[in-house]
């Protein structure tokens, strides 16, 4: 039975206090374990929901399981480099957004065939192996002969070989959350093509790299294993494992009154400065061919901003002063093809040059933009 929490349901008792939030609703329920399901399929709303629960709900004597799914999106870990981890031009072309989560770990692709589970506990009760046991036991309860095992690296493998789940965690001062994915019926062709970077060879960085693994869907071994069935099984196994008796409660992350501040949290993680700007320092060293001319490009990028840009071009192809102005236009700007395109267009407009030179500059721009 799915119990829906609305704002009205939480404005209980006569006291018209402002503080009728999700947090107080949990207090009033008085349960030690709560299972939630998100009503949203938007990655930013769901990540904000995770953060809100982590920040605002008292988890010292209570644990929470949150089940959620998203429309197609690529999610990178807190300290990763998106240019290294996925094919950004393809993401833009397909209209698939990119998100950066607050927990560590590697890059994953979500769509409706993927289930996300977040286990919220106090820091004392933080136990990833036990959480994964909930998942493997739930799957085995559905299909007893299913070969699913959790590894030391907190992955879940199918048939000892195919990865069906990856894990990441975030620890705060007093509480922690551990979340993991589960591949039920994900579009594997999209997954493999978006998670293969087009520029990884030209990037040098210390960002956390992802470990690529062969993957498989649970529905490949048993078509009856669909997302809804699996989510129900995991919910009931969660109750079994920890001795709770919670029903699955649906929560709408768009409900600002119930979760004050969640809208801002969701907006904050959509900003370029978070998604791209939080990339650890890296450098790009690429050899391009423009008009049959070899061009060497060197850039240092910190916090997503180009700190240093150098281009090696044969002098007879373009005059050095023009090249210098070109690189100084890029210096200090975001490592973003849209912004670079606009800045370089302004550069071409305002600097008097012949049509031939303008054409060369434009093709050089395109070469540089292709690595962004």
């Amino acid at each position, binding site marked *: 039975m799915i119990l829906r929490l609305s704002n009205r349901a939480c404005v209980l008792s006569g006291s018209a206090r402002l503080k009728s939030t999700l947090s107080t609703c949990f207090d009033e329920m008085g349960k030690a374990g709560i299972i939630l399901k998100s009503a949203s399929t938007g990655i930013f709303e769901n990540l904000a929901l995770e953060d809100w629960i982590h920040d605002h709900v008292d988890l010292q004597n209570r644990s929470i399981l949150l089940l959620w799914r998203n429309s197609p999106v690529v999610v990178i870990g807190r300290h990763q480099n998106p240019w290294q981890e996925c094919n950004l031009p393809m993401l833009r072309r397909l209209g698939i957004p990119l998100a950066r989560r607050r*927990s560590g770990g590697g890059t994953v692709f979500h769509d409706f065939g993927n289930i996300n589970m977040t286990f919220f506990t106090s820091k004392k009760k933080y136990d990833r192996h036990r959480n994964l046991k909930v998942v493997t036991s739930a799957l085995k309860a559905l299909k007893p002969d299913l070969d699913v095992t959790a590894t030391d690296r907190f992955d879940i493998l199918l048939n000892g070989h195919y990865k069906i789940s990856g894990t990441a965690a975030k620890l705060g001062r007093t509480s922690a959350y551990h979340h993991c994915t589960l591949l039920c019926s994900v579009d594997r062709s999209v997954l493999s093509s978006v998670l293969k970077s087009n520029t990884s060879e030209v990037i040098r960085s210390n960002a956390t790299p992802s470990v690529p693994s062969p993957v498989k869907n649970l529905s490949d071994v048993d078509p009856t294993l669909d997302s809804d069935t699996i989510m129900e099984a995991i919910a009931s196994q969660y109750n079994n494992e920890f001795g709770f008796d919670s029903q699955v409660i649906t929560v709408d992350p768009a409900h600002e009154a119930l979760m004050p501040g969640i809208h801002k949290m969701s907006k904050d993680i959509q900003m370029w400065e978070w998604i791209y700007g939080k990339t650890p320092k890296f450098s790009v060293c690429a050899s391009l061919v423009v008009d049959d001319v070899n061009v060497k490009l060197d850039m240092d990028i910190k916090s997503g901003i180009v700190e240093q840009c150098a281009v090696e071009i044969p002098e007879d192809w373009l005059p050095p002063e023009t090249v210098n102005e070109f690189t100084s236009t890029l210096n200090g700007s975001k490592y973003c093809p849209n912004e670079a395109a606009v800045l370089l*267009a302004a550069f071409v407009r305002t600097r008097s040059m012949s049509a031939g030179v303008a054409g060369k500059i434009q093709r050089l721009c395109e070469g540089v933009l292709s690595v962004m």
Partner: protein
Amino acid sequence: MAAMTSVRSSLTTLRRLVVSHRLQQGPRLQALGPAPVVHISTPLTSIHWRGFRSSHVASGHVLPFKLSDIGEGIMEVTVKEWYVKEGDRVCQFDSICEVQSDKASVTIASRYDGVIRKLYYDVDAVAHVGSTLVDIETDKAPEGDPEEDVVETPAMSYNHEKTQATPAVRRLAMENNIKLSEVVGTGKDGRILKEDIISFLAKQTGAILPYEVQNIPTPVISTPDTPPKEETPITAPPAIPRHIFSGEDRTEPLNGFQKAMVKTMSAALKTPHFGYCDEVDLTQLVRLRSELKDLAESRGVKLSYMPFFIKAASLGLLQFPVLNASVDESCQNITFKASHNIGLAMDTPQGLLVPNVKSVQALSVFDIAVELKRLQALGSAGQLGTADLTGGTFTLSNIGSIGGTYAKPVILPPEVAIGALGKIQVLPRFISRDEIAKAYIMNVSWSADHRVIDGATMSRFSNLWRSFLENPAAMVLDLK
């Protein structure tokens, strides 16, 4: 030294009355433990107190803050990001750094209030559990804290936790007679932020501010005559005299798009502009478009008026090629561009972008509509490339789609002309000596480079352009 001693004693007296942390250097306004809040800024306090601050600091207690056990038997972590640097002031529970171990990202929070004195690890270094992460210099509490009586003691919240708020926020609440226990905190761990007080106040006065506005401190003005409105589920509070509190100035550096616009418009200043405005009767065009709309939609394109305006401009440029030209920097040579690459001023989420439709002289109205659709899709997705953004020779700005009649557009270098189209209005016009009829009127405002374009040329071009639009059938004669 004698002078110092006498200042010191008078200072101690002053300290009994007040301590202000607004005098602290450093970008962050952080609380100094249990915070006294009343501020007296006499010259004596400001100058000498600051002087004392630097020497006072040496007598603080430097405590090593060690990396505590993360759990799960983890013995070492990698430091990934520092949120503080040496010399920064921190409060208890402020985030100090982010470390990573084995797919877990951990936020380390400060245990003390104080000043960061030393960071022990660089980014990407490996830190062992139990080793020192930072040295924090804690400040001694000022002797005999009478200042604490001035401030409302931390309110007990519904959850019986100490309500966290910085002294600045506490003062704001106190000034506005707000109980902190009544305010929902949206900061970390339920901390009450300035924005929370502001939104609480806004709700009280009945002005419900939308979420986005709540992020920026908005001036809330309420006269004493206006009684606070009833708002469910909150009961109206008693009328409290309110004063106006204004937001603070905010300075930020220009982003890339703004810099590009600064560069372009500054270069445009060099061009001596003249303006020429006219009125176009689009009644027949409106009829034509409504006839063609469905046909275009069946071919997958929404037909607006812009493709007609653009094609008419191109037909006009064939007769007046000087408007599709470019002058070099020294103004010695003028280049007549062969291709009519007509730019469209586009309002995107990032700001003003001007992509152009290439070779309009070779395109039909429908082709132009298709190209417009492509550019608009790229523009709103923020994916316009250099090919689309460069090479323009003439520009049209359809500001009328948002509003306005007349404008004074700025020519985008290296072009020599630009047109701004106002909104289409339905107005009465005389069709014969005595009869008035409904007409669809649009105003156009041209700007041209007076170094190479004269008024007569602009006027003749405008008349020709206008004639194509007022009598669209005439365009058929010149179709290529």
